[in-house]
């Protein structure tokens, strides 16, 4: 497996449900994916849970999913949600909850 993404998929402005392209891709392929957040400016609870789910599924298939162009509002949602697999894709290694 290389680190280079073979497929770049742009996410919608509101991520509130599964993105079919990605679903299909995960079923039919085993190469890396880059999710482009450039247009995504709102994410719902369902959207977060779906992201978590596809990351878990991708991990089980050894597919690497990467994120790009995350806007601060969305990045903050990830930080607050403390979902481990999502934060790992964002580069975190541990301490997903804030600590002082």
């Amino acid at each position, binding site marked *: 497996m290389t680190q280079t993404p073979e497929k770049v998929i742009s996410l919608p402005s509101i991520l509130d449900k599964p993105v079919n392209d990605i679903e299909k891709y995960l079923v039919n392929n085993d190469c890396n994916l880059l999710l482009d957040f450039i247009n995504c400016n*709102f*994410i*719902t*609870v*369902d959207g*977060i*849970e779906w992201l978590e789910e596809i990351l878990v599924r991708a991990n089980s298939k050894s597919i690497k999913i990467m994120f790009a162009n995350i806007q601060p*509002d969305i990045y*903050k*949602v*990830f*930080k*607050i*949600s*403390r*979902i481990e697999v999502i934060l790992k894709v964002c580069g975190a290694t541990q301490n997903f*909850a804030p600590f002082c």
Partner: protein
Amino acid sequence: MVSSLEKSEINLHNKANFLARQARLASAVFIQYSQAQVDKIVKAMTIAAIESAQLLAQKAYSETRMGVVEDKILKNLVASEFLYNQVKDKPTVGEINILVDENIVEIAEPLGVILALTPVTNPTSTVIFKSIACAKTRNSIIFSPHLMAADSSNLAAKILYDAAIANGAPKGFISWIEKSPRLRRQTEILMTHSDIDLIFATGGTQMVKAAHSSGKPALGVGSGNTPVYIHKSADIKPTVNDIIISKTFDNGTECPSEQTLIIDVEIAPAIIAEFKHLGCYICQDNEIEMLANIVVDSRSRSMNYKLVGQSAVFIANQAGFNVPENTKILLCELKGNIQQHKLIVEKLMPVLGYVTVDNLNNGINRALDVNYAGGTGHTSGIFAKDEQVIKLFTNSINAGRIIVNSPTSIGGLGGMYNNLNTTLSFGCGTGGGNITTDNVGIKNLLNIKRQPQRKNFSVSFKTTKQIYSNPGSLSYLKELAIKNPFIISSHNAMKRGFINQVIEKLPPLVLPTIFAEINNEPDWSCVEKALAKIKQANCDSIIAIGGGSVIDLAKIVRLFYDHPNLNLSEIAISFLDFRHRMCEFPEALTTKLIAIPTTSGTGSEVTPFAVLKDNSKHLKLSLIDETLLPDVAIIDANLTLSLPQNITKDTAFDALTHSLEALVSTFSSDYTDGLALEAMRLIIEALPKVLIEPTNIIYRHKLHNAATLAGMAIGNASVGLNHAMAHSFGAVFDIPHGLANSVFLLTTLAYNSQIPNKFMAQSNYPQWIADLKYVRAFEYLGLYPELKISVDYTNESFETRQKLILALRQKIYDFARVCNQPLSIEELGIAFADYEKHIPSLVQATFMDMSLRTNPGYPFMKDIYNLYIDAYPKRKRP
């Protein structure tokens, strides 16, 4: 094998994890919501609550059998409609407040996930209140209901959640723990769950204590025990009416409700009669005993929870006596020592204690007895017309809410009788083990981020209003509109004939009083002598002729002559912030001060400083305020022609130090820079010539002007490290001030031209530019030809700047040598051993000297120590 108990525990943890996770995701998503989205959700929730108010009240009553359905409806409406009206226009998203005067912007940030404990007494209204408040502040909330009221509480949560979701709220932002025998355990698990950000505990003391013990931030409430003082100035009928409304509200389940009345004896019979007239029952002594036995639990000495929210008739029956049907309240006189009476405790039921008192002090003291019997920080009440009485009561009582001339229960809720925040959670401050005394509301459910704008100080420049500068300008005295001046001078000035010169120049018929008893360094006794004399002569002005000490003394004498009640120790305080000094000087002085310097050094004639020796502490007191500025300065170089050579040199080096330090001061400005640079140039030009030809009036004039220009510079920019060291050193070794300055000059110049170990924190000094300022001095003094290079100081490298500064230091060295001025401690003839033993105390004194506050670098004490060491050996050319 896993036991069933362990399975149950695992199951509880799983449930807790599920609740916490969905709340966390919702709180994360909620952060994206705009104010408009939030307000739409809040409005929908409020409407749902209003529409369900009756259903929820009935459900609460049928489940708990506490209170009164009709009042519970009202509570539900207060928690929804009243709350909505209070918060609907309040911003809770993004910038919520701009503090114009403070230049601070406040930005709201949600708290996150809140675990909310709700009580059995207000099971639905509390849920309504907390749900709406959390929606308004974009927080997620998990309800932990009271086991005895879980169904009604959870129904309220579901109704509001459904309305919120239908209007776009994030999934899972309201959730609740289902009713089960393990509800308490599940609450405990959640209390320490990593995803819970805050516990918002309204309920029994044990639960609130558990919340505070969880290690999480907690908004708790304390128990109440509301004393209500009825002063003799109160209106009897409205008072009794209000108390009945309040105490019967939901059968007394509201914790701010009245618990014990303290009634002035003058009106007690009328008050009791009015209660009786309106349907309350006045219990006899034996009935009070019977009531106390069932109302108060004998073991815990607190109220019997089985009677909370029950009717007066029911409670009387339980106690073993009958009262008329529809009796509203059972009134019990608490005879004897009230503090030992069983019924002094909180009674969330229509049982009301009362005592009579014979004066105001006893009234407030008995109220304090009730207040401190389990109700500190909560609520108190007073009925009185006398504002003074209300003030006294308010100052004495320890309560977050002091309800005046209104019902304490509904008054405490806020919104109906007053403008307190509508709440179902009453903060009790530390008196109740809480962090706030607020009526807890949306403000308590936000993290407020504050973004202060950097202060931009306007640079002010102040100096003496009238300055007359030229040889012979002493003749200006003739134009003064004064009648009986007080001439302050020194023995030396008297000998040099200055006082006679002044008298000759005064207008005809002016009768001066002379005070020429000043030695080198005047102290307070000298001020007192001068004050006695000036008061006796009733002078209208002061003419100070002499060196810096004379002019400084005159400033202080004028201050205390005009304001005899001032306290020296209160105005001679060291301070850090030159703009907001803690010493308060009078705004204006009426006695005119004319300052005539006879030395060319201190610049005191144009500075707001005055120094006075404190003989008792062996230190110098510094007074600093623009009020001290003289009104007139006469800079007449004729008065310096006879100045001895050593004083001429020392004072000139004082002025040179002023100019060098003002130039790099953190308070320097373009205004002071110009003055400092020109002063420096004049001194370097004039002093050598004056030393060769002391009576050369042209160069004496330049030197005299230089001192005044440098004085104006330090009067607005202050000085720095060199002065701090010179003050300390001079005081210990009794060295004249100018001479003390000169021995540190090359040491501090080298130190301040280096990037400091620690920069001076000054909001008006955006960057360290001391080295650039020294380069500017190098340029202004025209030292390029000596260096034979050309450099644009704004662009050259740090290394180049250091070369130019080295040239400046060499120039100062050469100048001092030409003037035969000592440049080190050793050159003063002080033995190193004697010097060294004083260095630790010199370091301490230097560090505390106010002059240091405007130095461009903030030296560590070890730096100052090294500087003292550096200043000792005979100076070599840098």
